[in-house]
């Protein structure tokens, strides 16, 4: 069994309207040191498999095909064994 933690966020070249708005709110709360906010999503998957290499390949395919949109988003993931 593997637990996969996937992070998907907008590419740095793509303006993040939510991040920009949240930055404004943080500034109005006095956290003026905040230079930039990028908002993404975290997904947790549990895989019923014992083959870590194969699991990584399949998770990568899942990200490319569905979980992230490569036009505007980057993704990264990590696998945790036995989680």
């Amino acid at each position, binding site marked *: 069994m593997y637990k996969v933690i996937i992070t998907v966020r*907008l590419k740095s*070249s*793509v*303006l993040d*309207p*939510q991040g920009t*708005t949240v930055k404004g709110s943080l500034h109005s709360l006095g956290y003026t040191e905040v230079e930039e906010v990028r908002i993404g999503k975290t997904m947790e998957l549990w895989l019923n498999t014992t083959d870590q290499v194969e699991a990584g390949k399949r998770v990568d395919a899942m990200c490319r095909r*569905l*979980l992230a*949109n490569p*036009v*505007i988003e980057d993704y990264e993931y990590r696998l945790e064994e036995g989680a």
Partner: protein
Amino acid sequence: MRFAVPVFPGSNCDVDCAKAVREVLDRPVDLVWHTERNLENFDAIILPGGFSYGDYLRTGALARFSPVMESVAEAAEKGKMILGICNGFQVLLEAGLLPGAMRVNDHLQFRCAIQPLRVENNQLPFTRLYEEGEEIHFPIAHGEGNYYCDPETLKELEEQGRIVFRYSGENPNGSVAGIAGVVNAQGNVLGLMPHPERATHDWMGSADGARLFQSMFRTWEGINGAA
């Protein structure tokens, strides 16, 4: 000429699209559940607006894998006219039938208004009854209409006349280059955020959308002769 309107779980403009076809063109139109795999009997397909699959993950991301989308891709390949409106546009982007992607509106608000648009290309199957540069009015109703494509793609779209509609006046969502609608390279797949099907009678506030459906019919007639 027979139209199909695929209906996904969460579509909500499907009936409006069917009514537009019936009332403007008096042509047959079928609402088709998204599990249908065969659209061969249809001459044109309208992907309707709404919130397919609750907009979960990303707008259009899950609908794009519905069984019906394979036959939509086949129809596009064959040169049949495909019109994606609002969520239908988002589905076409996710399916890769049109370039680019959709982001949340830059102001983060849902925007619902009658929007002026400029017709940038009137040489298409969908726009032949408009004047080039004509200002028309379609309603918009979306929270994620902030169209994005990279600079190379934008250049290509500009050079090939594939930006079909641009927002006139204030850009309601922050889309690149004020883009409201784009077409594929073959010219038979159009996606736009504004709703032509909600602008088919004067009492709706605008009847400018009628000519989009009439253009499609005129195109089909030109290829197939009588209706």
